[in-house]
């Protein structure tokens, strides 16, 4: 790698980019093209994020459009003049003395990257709505199914129920069929006509609409039962012999008492209820967030140049609001340009990535429409039976959470302190959205007032020995002993 004209001390760079998906990769490459010294960090062994996820060693013989796009992304990242830190888990970010310290753990041990600017491009995470049995072996996420099928080339099952809401339902169902499996049924919380409500925004991307229509045709031609306006209420049975019960719901998400449920026999259930921005890094950094259902819920607030409200902090891609893979690269480039300008490294005449607004607006409209199609009414949450486990890590049922809410828990942090909901290893990623909705339903408070759980390090569980490394007892900088 040729020396950057602005080389700093080892372990330091102009900008650290977290996440090597479409937004992060584009940000890193653009920043490098603008002459900045860039460090790109990602947990996975290669670039691609979730949407273009792949593993070294497993590849299709004939790449489809997504795979080709992902391979292109990977090769531009590999060729770029940047520091790449793959297989690195970032566990803390802090701003000290006008620079960011990004603490990560990689295969060779701990590493701290010092950067003047930080671009957070950590993408989205899946929203889950609990049902009886959602914690059983054999039930996986929709996003998990895409990882299994696309990256690992393994089917979730041979006869799979695909359930939840949003565009991923068809993506997963199609992938299962292409992989030689059967889809026992698609259980879609949206009513059949919901797609048309968003027709105006969807036609901003006719290519993607055509693709979606093609997928629906595939379902029909394979005789896949499509249960529109239904949600899963129960899954039981044994590992590969599962019984799923899907109930019809009204517009508001409440099950119809009088209409019969449908029983589905299958060997796996894939479920997911749309994507939400992953806000853990920006929360930890202390940036301001807002709640907007059109963007997938809580998201970090960014200006037109992808700047957050903290100096030196930027966000791009689904983490700033779920707008999809098409909109992500442009946001990444915009963020990189903003970094270069803010660091005083951009030529005043340089074009930068401020243009191409129209393409960005179109892409974002489509992405937003997709996000709005990936929501389910409050009734689906309100009708969760009391015994259903909401917080899987701490095994807390809805009944326990309701009790704490009735006792006065008004914010998600209150609920967390009172019940330990969200204090387990997953850090609330599976349960916080549901818990917040329960508070909203029960108290009438807004999601904004209910808030997000306070961000705390480590961002993901980290091995204590790996963090501590080898050290000399005598070298520990002991502060003065406490007073006698």
């Amino acid at each position, binding site marked *: 790698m040729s020396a950057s004209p602005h080389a700093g001390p080892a372990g330091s760079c102009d900008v650290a980019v977290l996440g090597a998906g479409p937004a992060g990769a584009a940000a890193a490459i653009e920043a490098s093209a603008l002459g900045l010294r860039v460090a790109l960090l990602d947990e996975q062994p290669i670039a691609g994020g979730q949407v273009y996820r792949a593993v070294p060693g497993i590849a299709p013989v004939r790449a489809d459009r997504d795979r080709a796009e992902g391979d292109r992304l990977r090769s531009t990242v590999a060729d770029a003049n940047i520091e790449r830190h793959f297989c690195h888990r970032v566990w*803390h970010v802090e701003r*000290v003395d006008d620079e960011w310290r990004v603490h990560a753990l990689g295969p060779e041990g701990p590493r701290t990257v010092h950067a003047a600017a930080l671009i957070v491009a950590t993408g989205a995470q899946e929203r889950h709505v609990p049902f009886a049995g959602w914690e059983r072996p054999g039930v996986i996420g929709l996003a998990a199914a895409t990882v299994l099928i696309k990256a690992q080339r393994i089917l979730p099952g041979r006869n799979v129920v695909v359930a939840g809401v949003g565009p991923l339902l068809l993506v997963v169902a199609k992938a299962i069929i292409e992989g030689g499996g059967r889809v026992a049924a698609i259980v879609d919380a949206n009513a059949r006509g919901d797609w048309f409500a968003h027709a105006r925004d969807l036609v901003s991307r006719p290519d993607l609409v055509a693709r979606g229509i093609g997928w629906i045709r595939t379902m029909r031609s394979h005789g896949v039962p499509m249960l529109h306006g239904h949600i899963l209420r129960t899954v039981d049975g044994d590992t590969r012999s599962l019984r799923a019960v899907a109930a019809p719901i009204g517009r508001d998400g409440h099950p119809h008492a009088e209409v019969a449920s449908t029983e589905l026999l299958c060997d796996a259930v894939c479920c997911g209820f749309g994507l939400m921005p992953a806000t853990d890094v920006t929360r930890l950094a202390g940036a301001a967030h807002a709640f907007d259902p059109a963007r997938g819920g809580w998201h970090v607030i960014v200006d037109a140049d992808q700047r957050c409200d903290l100096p030196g902090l930027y966000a791009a891609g689904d983490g700033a609001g779920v707008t999809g893979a098409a909109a992500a690269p442009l946001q990444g480039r915009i963020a990189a340009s903003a970094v270069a300008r803010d660091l005083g490294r951009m030529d005043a005449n340089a074009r930068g990535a401020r243009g191409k607004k129209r393409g960005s607006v179109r892409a974002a409209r489509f992405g937003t429409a997709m996000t709005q199609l990936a929501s389910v009414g409050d009734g689906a949450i309100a009708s969760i039976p009391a015994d259903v486990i909401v917080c899987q890590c701490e095994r807390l049922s809805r009944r326990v959470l309701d009790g704490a809410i009735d006792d006065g828990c008004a914010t998600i942090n209150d609920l967390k302190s009172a019940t330990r909901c969200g204090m387990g290893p997953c850090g609330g990623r599976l349960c916080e959205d549901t818990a917040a909705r329960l508070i909203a339903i029960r108290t009438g408070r807004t999601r904004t007032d209910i808030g997000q759980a306070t961000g705390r390090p480590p961002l993901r569980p980290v091995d*204590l*020995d790996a963090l501590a*490394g080898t050290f000399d007892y005598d070298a520990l900088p002991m502060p003065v002993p406490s007073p006698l």
Partner: protein
Amino acid sequence: MSATSANRYDLLVIGAGIMGATAALRAAQGGMRVIVVERDVAGSGASGVNAGTLSLQIKRVGLMRYALRGYEWWREAGEAVGFKRTGGYTLAFTASEQALLEERMTKKRDAGAPIELVSPAEARAREPALSDRVVGASYCAADGYADSTRTGPYLRGLLRAANVHLHEHTLARSIDAGGDGFRVATPGGPIDARRLLIASGAWTASVAAMLGVTLPINVRVNTVSVTEPGPRRLHAAIGHATGLLTLKQKANGSYLIGGGWQGRGSPATGRGEVDGETLLQNLRLARFAVPALAHTRVLRSWTGFEASVADHYPLAGVLPGVPNAYVLACVRGGYTIGPCIGPLVADLILGREPELPLFDPTRVLAVTTRDGSRAGDGRVPGK
């Protein structure tokens, strides 16, 4: 102020942590009509986020009598606060640490704590998980811990049962002092009281400033970490000769690591931040002391604010220069000691003689004032 005496409280306490709540309870017991206002929820400050250590070995010599009494409150609270009497070891790994340990523990034992010095072999025989690098140790059978997250709900229950009014999510915005007492402005409206107790933990200085009193309070930002559950290896609570480590394995198998390593932040923003570097040092010290920590995963680290003054003794008594106003804060080891000292201050407020000496806040003003005209001689109280 035109409030009628019907809706004027006898005592308004600002802060529903251990200090404020136990003082409020005692005052109510003594016949006063009491209200507690709390900016967040009961026990959301240091009382609810500390590592839960109830160790006599880490208490100051001058506060040992108070610690012994406070400890009894925790023991009686029992299961409601997750109280566990596990015994505790304090460890030394170098000759100078051992000297420090012996000197300190001898004094603390003389002050009333059942502490004995033990050999490394004895310590490791009883606690095999301890490092083989221990060169000296002390043991106290009474040491243990409680679940600090239960502090808030427990205090809330006690306050309710005692008919003490508790207004949570209620910030005291300003305080007017007049002939009849105090009027505290809150988002829910003004509250009147004849007497005022400031028990606001790390926010005590800013609350006192509302009455024009400047208290030279320092705020520390203590870091605590918790790991995933692991196999049961450690039974006793573990400390370090310097006081810079607390380590325990909870009933569910997870380890709680503390010791006062400093993060960043201030009560003004309400937000503390974990410092990555000091966190690592804290974890290293814990790992060194108990090698069984190897390969547990750290789940979460957080910070809590702890207030103190220069001599590291409490502020417990009248608020200087303001009649009928009192302050209780800056108690190092406040988690253990709070339930003793809160009621003592309440006794003062009730006009009774507290059973143990209090800690006159005017002494800190005497130390910092320039013209030397104040009363108070800076003498260390409690002796």
